[in-house]
């Protein structure tokens, strides 16, 4: 690093300190909760990812060019305890004071878990007269094939029918008032709802996507009738057509809101007590960052906050290793998340799914399959097929090999039988692996299929890989992408074990195993760019609008988004703006989002958008139509400047990796046993080459390199796995 750059950094840091001090003065002087501070440039940034078992932290010292990680046990009763323990630990290691940290970026699964465990608020719902049953009827959809209704039981709506009231009012499809709001009746009914003990309120009125006029009035009355109860209106949370989806989304917002608000407020308070004036930001499902207040108001945007951290981390690592096109593969104990990154941008969609709850909130297009290390294998008597999952042994009783009482054969047990998780090597973690128990469990499958033990174990691994391959297809081929144009990055507890095999299945090379695959989410949290967007529904044919009208609207949206981002401390000069237009053929149900930079729009206008849509439609669906184009929605996305890369120094070594070799072992692959070597990742150096079959162990993860493949350690510490004959591997 040059001296000039150092000087600039020091200068910026000092400037930031002064700004921060000024900001504190301003905050103290202006008691309004919306007071905004400048973001201290060059301060210390901390990424925090709270998982079920561990809380991971990653500290970025931009000025000093340093990076620190820490892992502490999670404290489910009050996560902030674990977070603070972690902060103490990481500060000790970095030799800094907690108060030197200026920003904490946090990816959280609290919203997701609230939905998964059914522990959200009791939600009251106000609908338009005649639409009380919107959630009860939903879309009338019954999952499964023919006769699926025979075995399907519908879960209760998140806002119970007994807690749903109707407002006597009506808007038409253009937003005009057909029936004025009957306020007296509403007041009475709201009082009843309050007395029933609801903890949050959703207001979702028919045609409310066009106009929020009645919803706002109902909210004002609710504030009088039930002060203190948080109110979410559909016109603010998700002003999009389709009454069921909009209502469900807003109800989910209400459902998770008290839990999330309490969590965020508590964390913020604890952080401030320990670290003084620190800016807490929460990672959103779409990979952007949200202020703590926005997170508390619209928590429906946080349902994918956890996985988004992983994708952001993968993005960051891979970019610095020189890969723009990437499939991410985050495999845990019960499920696996996959996503697609093209040219350094993660693909997003306007929908988020958690179990059977589907909401219309933008999220990174992460597909989850119920396949993980804990997935249980079985052989149905009647068909003698080998099935893996979706049932999982979870953390308790866990895989048989963990000796915590689990007896069912799991994917992890198959990995143990095959020698991929060696029981005879000292693993970084303190988990003991019992091969004998894994063998007993997997033998049941072997007996059921009438094959030998190893064949059964390899079969389990191949089936689970195939399931995950299905998810990778959904994000790639189904969207018109060819996996061969992508590298695959494997992380999470089990990702590094399966990444090589998946790369081989879909021909995506190399398989990348990042350093510290278990703390990648925290990495993503810490390196995420600030992002804000403003959007509006705008349904019209392209013929009925003009470049000028559209340009004015997009510019107005961009200004709005930019101002907010400025308020969060990103000066205009550091902002990037992108327009997004949702467009389809008139009559279609779906829409595609076309991205366009403002100067491109100025050049090409609506015609350019339509032409891009035609091209993408043809790429995705093999045909384009000569039908009229219809615009559906407009957005402006504004992002802060990109963070510079800081990485550990992995030294330089030659191709010879023998210094990191720990011991010999055996692995079973492709139908036979092979001699293999176990390596210690901490001792690997840039440039090292590892011939497969090999196993690489580190504190929180184990990686597998298959026979016929070679792992190459790159300059930033990734292991890049290539087929042995590949030019990059030689």
């Amino acid at each position, binding site marked *: 690093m040059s001296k000039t750059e150092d000087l600039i950094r020091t200068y910026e840091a000092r400037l930031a300190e002064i700004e921060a001090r000024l900001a504190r003065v301003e905050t103290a002087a202006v008691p309004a909760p919306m007071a905004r501070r400048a973001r201290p440039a060059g301060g210390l940034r901390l990424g925090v990812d709270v998982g079920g078992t561990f809380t991971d932290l990653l500290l970025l010292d931009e000025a000093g060019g340093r990076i620190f990680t820490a892992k502490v046990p999670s404290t489910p009763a009050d996560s902030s305890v674990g977070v603070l323990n972690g902060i103490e630990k990481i500060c000790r290691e970095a030799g800094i004071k907690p108060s030197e940290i200026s920003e904490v970026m946090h990816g959280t699964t609290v919203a997701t878990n609230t939905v998964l465990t059914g522990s959200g608020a009791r939600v009251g719902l106000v609908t338009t007269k005649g639409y009380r049953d919107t959630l009860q009827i939903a879309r009338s959809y019954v999952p*499964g094939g023919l006769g699926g209704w025979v075995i399907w039981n519908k879960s209760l709506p998140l806002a119970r029918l007994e807690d749903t009231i109707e407002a006597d009012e009506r808007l038409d499809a253009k937003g005009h008032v057909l029936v004025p709001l009957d306020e007296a009746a509403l007041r009475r009914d709201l009082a009843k709802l309050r007395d029933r003990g609801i903890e949050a309120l959703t207001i979702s009125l028919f045609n409310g996507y066009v106009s929020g006029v009645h919803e706002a009035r109902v909210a004002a009355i609710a504030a009088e009738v039930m002060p203190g109860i948080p109110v979410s209106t559909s016109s603010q949370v998700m002003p999009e057509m389709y009454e069921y989806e909009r209502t469900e989304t807003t109800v989910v917002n209400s459902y998770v809101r008290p839990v999330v608000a309490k969590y965020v407020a508590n964390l913020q308070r604890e952080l401030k007590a320990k670290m003084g004036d620190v800016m807490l930001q929460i990672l959103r499902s779409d990979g952007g960052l949200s202020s703590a207040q926005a997170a508390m108001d619209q928590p429906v945007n946080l349902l994918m906050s956890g996985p988004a951290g992983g994708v952001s981390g993968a993005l960051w690592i891979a970019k610095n290793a020189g890969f723009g096109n990437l499939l991410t593969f985050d495999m845990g104990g019960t499920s696996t998340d996959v996503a697609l990154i093209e040219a350094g941008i993660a693909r997003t969609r306007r929908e988020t799914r958690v179990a059977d709850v589907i909401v219309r909130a933008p999220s990174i297009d992460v597909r989850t399959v119920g396949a993980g290390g804990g997935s249980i294998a079985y052989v*149905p008597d*009647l*068909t003698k097929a080998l099935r893996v999952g979706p049932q999982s042994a979870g953390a308790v009783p866990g895989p048989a090999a963990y000796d915590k009482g689990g007896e069912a054969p799991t994917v992890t047990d198959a990995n143990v039988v095959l020698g991929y998780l060696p029981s005879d090597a000292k693993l970084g973690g303190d988990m003991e692996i019992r091969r004998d128990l894994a063998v007993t469990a997997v033998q049941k499958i072997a007996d059921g299929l009438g094959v030998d033990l190893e064949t059964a174990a390899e079969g389990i691994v191949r089936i689970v890989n*195939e399931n995950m391959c299905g998810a990778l297809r959904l994000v790639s*081929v189904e969207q018109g992408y060819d996996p061969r144009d992508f590298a695959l990055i494997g992380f999470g507890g089990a990702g590094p074990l399966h990444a090589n095999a998946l790369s081989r299945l879909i021909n995506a090379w190399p398989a990348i195993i990042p350093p510290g695959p278990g703390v990648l989410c925290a990495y993503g949290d810490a390196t995420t760019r600030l992002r804000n967007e403003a959007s509006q529904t705008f349904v019209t044919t392209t013929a009925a609008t003009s470049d000028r009208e559209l340009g004015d609207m997009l510019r107005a949206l961009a200004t709005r988004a930019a101002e907010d981002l400025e308020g969060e401390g990103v000066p205009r000069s550091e902002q990037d703006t992108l327009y997004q237009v949702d467009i389809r053929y008139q009559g279609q*149900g779906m829409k595609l989002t076309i991205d366009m930079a403002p100067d491109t729009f100025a050049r090409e206008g609506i015609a350019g958008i339509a032409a891009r849509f035609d091209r993408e439609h043809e790429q995705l669906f093999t045909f384009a139509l000569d039908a009229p184009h219809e615009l559906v929605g407009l957005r402006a996305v504004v992002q802060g400047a990109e963070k510079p890369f800081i990485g550990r120094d992995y030294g330089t070594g030659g191709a010879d990796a023998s210094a990191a070799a720990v011991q010999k072992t055996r692995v079973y692959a492709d139908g036979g046993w092979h001699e293999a070597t176990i390596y210690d990742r901490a001792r690997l150096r840039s440039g090292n080459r590892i011939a497969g079959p090999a196993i690489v162990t580190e504190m929180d993860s184990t990686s597998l390199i298959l026979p016929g493949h070679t792992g190459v350690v790159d300059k930033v510490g990734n292991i890049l796995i290539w087929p042995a004959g590949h030019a990059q591997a030689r």
Partner: protein
Amino acid sequence: MPAKIIQTNTTPFTRVTVDPITLDIVENALRNARAEMDAVLFRTAMSPGIREQHDAFPMIANEQGKMVVGQFGSFLYGFMQGYEGTIEDGDIFLTNDPYSCGGAVSHLNDWLLMMPIFHEGRLVSWSAMFGHMTDVGGKVPGSLPTDAKMIYEEGLIIPPTKIYRKGELNAELFNILLANTRMPEWNKSDFLAIIASLRLAERRVRENIQRFGVDSYISAMQDMLDRNKLAMGAIIKMFIPEGRDKASHFEDWIDDDGQGNGPFKIACTMWREGDLAIFDFAGSDPQSLSSINFLLNEEMFKMFFGAFTINLFDPQILFNDGFYDLVDVRIPAGCILKPKKPAALSCRTHMLGRIFDLMGGLLGQGAPDALNAAGFSDSPHFMYSGFDRDGKWFQLFQIGFGGVPGRPVGDGPDGHSMWPAFTNVPNEFLEAYFPLRIRTYATIPDSGGAGLHRGGNGITIAYEMLEAGEISIHDDRWLTYPWGVNGGEPGMRSTKTLVRADGTRENIPSKCDRIKVGPGDMLHFNTWGGGGWGDPLQRPADKVLADVERGLVSSNGARRYGVVIASGAVDARATEKLRAEMARARGETKLFDRGFENLRELKARAKKETGFEPPVDPVFFGARVAAE
């Protein structure tokens, strides 16, 4: 003469041993391919019937045309036998003619597209899909004329036709098709969407062959067929009584034909001879003079039967054609399930749905614990069309939903679909694109039959028309009831009421076309509920109370369960007393409760209960057929 398959490579496939794990992987890969076909279709189709309601069904078959993954079983074998021409790489075939594909599609609205998939000069698979086109011409908008007497009145008939030849669309022919529909844009887009899905399946099949080799791929498909056969063989032995003398028999009806005749009976007798299951529809009524006939494809019925039973044992299995040899379906020619050409077929939806009630009663009577009540066994249609103020043509085709029956596993969901993948059309979408306001979209309290497990409620929809036009309705169960089982009660019937802008009310019959409507007229379309399962007097009183609080059962309706509710709480003493009285009065519970003793008694009270004269016993010109 069967079709001539042109292969540039005539090397026969070699049957190889596929290890069980590779087999499961091929199965998963094909499952994924089918899901992708659906995804592509729903995203690009334009008609609400396909894009919102998902009235379309994909499949992938092996090289012989046997369905390996899909839902309705394969019609390809029949097609290959009947098509007089060549089948070549790049060809795609289109038909909508039920009579030339043995009922694989059962009315002209369903366009069936079939594509052979070649690999290195050999036919290796088929992909196919049919979807419901909103309009295919004919005498009424929507092409479903209630009063059609012959199929020629129902739209343009397309016998199996090569619509793509070596990858090239036959544009002139396609233009003829589009020229004969009221909604050419929708048909065109839906058609192209289906083609896109088929091509996607083709890509997936070729990828599989690349991965596993062609012989392994072909052999794996055969193994999957064999695996189904093995599994279904066991199920048939488990479910179906052996010997003609132990046969089960069940019958059900659709109420009328829209021309004042009815009800029409379908009957089925089921038994087993060794490994062979026999379903004999002797005793079903002869074909009707109007369009309610349902040309039931025997293979499709086998599929219905298989899908229903195998789900209970291995829900992950890919259901396929493998077990067809184990089932013999006998449908007498000239009966309402096998009408003779040129009988009209367009309004077959009621009979198609009723097959499921019939099958439920037939299979379940030997195992009451697994028996479901009768549910929303139909896809009733609402159609609205006309020219708006600006002279622009609008045309809506919409499918309604109702009560899923009470089942052994629990209550029936309210207002849901019993067809896979179907969803309703969002009302905000309707209001944005059609001259309609949907004033009410709600469940109907008490419409689900009382039971230990309650039948799902029907739905009431209030359509306010904003433009002058015409409506059509195709509905059923206005006379007979969705029956309850194991002591459960029948669900409530369907009704339709039109309230004119001037306040006058008229009851609208279940099947009608060309009802004139004007701005401000309001149609209340009430669908029927599901039958109840099990003794309602055994339903926990707090569950009944919860239903009352949710507005799904009325306070008065709670008394059907013997539950007395006073000021928002269960009156325990009064409930106990009422339940004891009701139990005494009714005696033994019935296995089936149809809500009537016999058709004569039912018809006698029709006018009083429904406002309509009862339909007259049908006189069949098909009686001649039966006498032959």
